[in-house]
């Protein structure tokens, strides 16, 4: 399974796709800040103060969950945009 160096056209397409992805991603993330994190903060603060073990568990679930979700979103976006630019 040999991979050859990308051509100039491929590089330009990748860069363009990446820039569009960055803009779309920024919109998603801004919405996420206001819709999800804003509402989570009160509940998480309460857990942090009163149920510290549960808070520790939720911390791991949230960060791993967000990682899997964002990885899927960025991969999907990149695939979608690359598909259109080719």
């Amino acid at each position, binding site marked *: 399974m040999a991979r050859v160096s990308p051509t100039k056209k491929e590089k330009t397409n990748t860069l363009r796709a990446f820039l569009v992805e960055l803009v779309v991603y920024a919109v998603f993330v801004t919405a996420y800040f206001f819709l999800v994190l804003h509402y989570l903060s009160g509940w998480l603060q309460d857990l942090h103060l009163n149920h510290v073990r549960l808070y520790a568990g939720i911390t791991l679930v949230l960060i791993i969950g*967000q990682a899997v979700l964002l990885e899927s979103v960025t991969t999907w976006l990149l695939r979608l945009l690359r598909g259109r630019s080719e």
Partner: protein
Amino acid sequence: MFFPISNSHISPLYLAIIGFFIGVLGGFFGVGGSFIAGPALRAVGLDWNFAVGTDLAHIVGKSVVAAKRHRALGNVDLKLGLIMAIGTMGGAEVGAQLIQMLKRAGNINNVVSIVSIAIYVSISTFMIWEAWRTLRSQKRRGPRAKVAGTAAKHDESSFSHRTKAIQRLKIWPMVSLPASGVTISLWVIVLVSFIGGLFSGFLGGGAGYIRMPMLVYVLGIPTHLAVGTDLFEIIISASYGTFSHAIKGNVDILIALVMHTGAAIGAQIGAISTQYFAGPKIRLAFVPLPLIGAAIVIYTLMTGHKL
């Protein structure tokens, strides 16, 4: 944006940009990036205990993204990563105990600072020497076929004769690692991961600056696989550290989640970029990272301010 858990006001854009930058470094070099994230969080007024714990939580998320991408590129040795996780956790506990001992003795700052400077500078000096020699010998032999990816699996190192000697140590049980193309004693793997964990517990962060070079030079793992496997291993050890810090109240998960929005995209870029560089070039580019760590410690020693 107000973060009620740590009672701090930090711009989300600042956090996302820092996360992005550390994500690129992490995806490319297989390091946690705590030597940048810690000072960056301190710079905006976050307490030291929150900076350490929150950084660990962010490292977990970033490593999941980067390791997933590296796995898709065939750069993760799962068997090796799982074995290493055991040694790392043991080492981290011993490192933390060592810190407690030094705290009681009352000379913790000087000892930790001097040890870390010596180690950071030694790693960088050795890697410059080795990567430079390898690149020079490759140049002397003439250019190879320009096929990326396949060459990466058969990494070259001018230190390989010593690595092979370590691999020849037949101390039972021997472990075969088909993904990395290496057969080596289990005890060597445990020792390497234990040392990585020890530094993680002793100096803080994920200690990728010492684990990644040891994977390459001691175990003989190809650089691309060392980066991916180190990231996979960091997921397990940093999760353990995050849980431990969260119980002590040192993690502001909201800050970590915001930082991670930038890191998620940066880690992917870093991981994909490794495909365009040969092993010795990645190792040579790695050299400034421990030196940045050393510069931060020297600054702290000279000014008395913790970054």
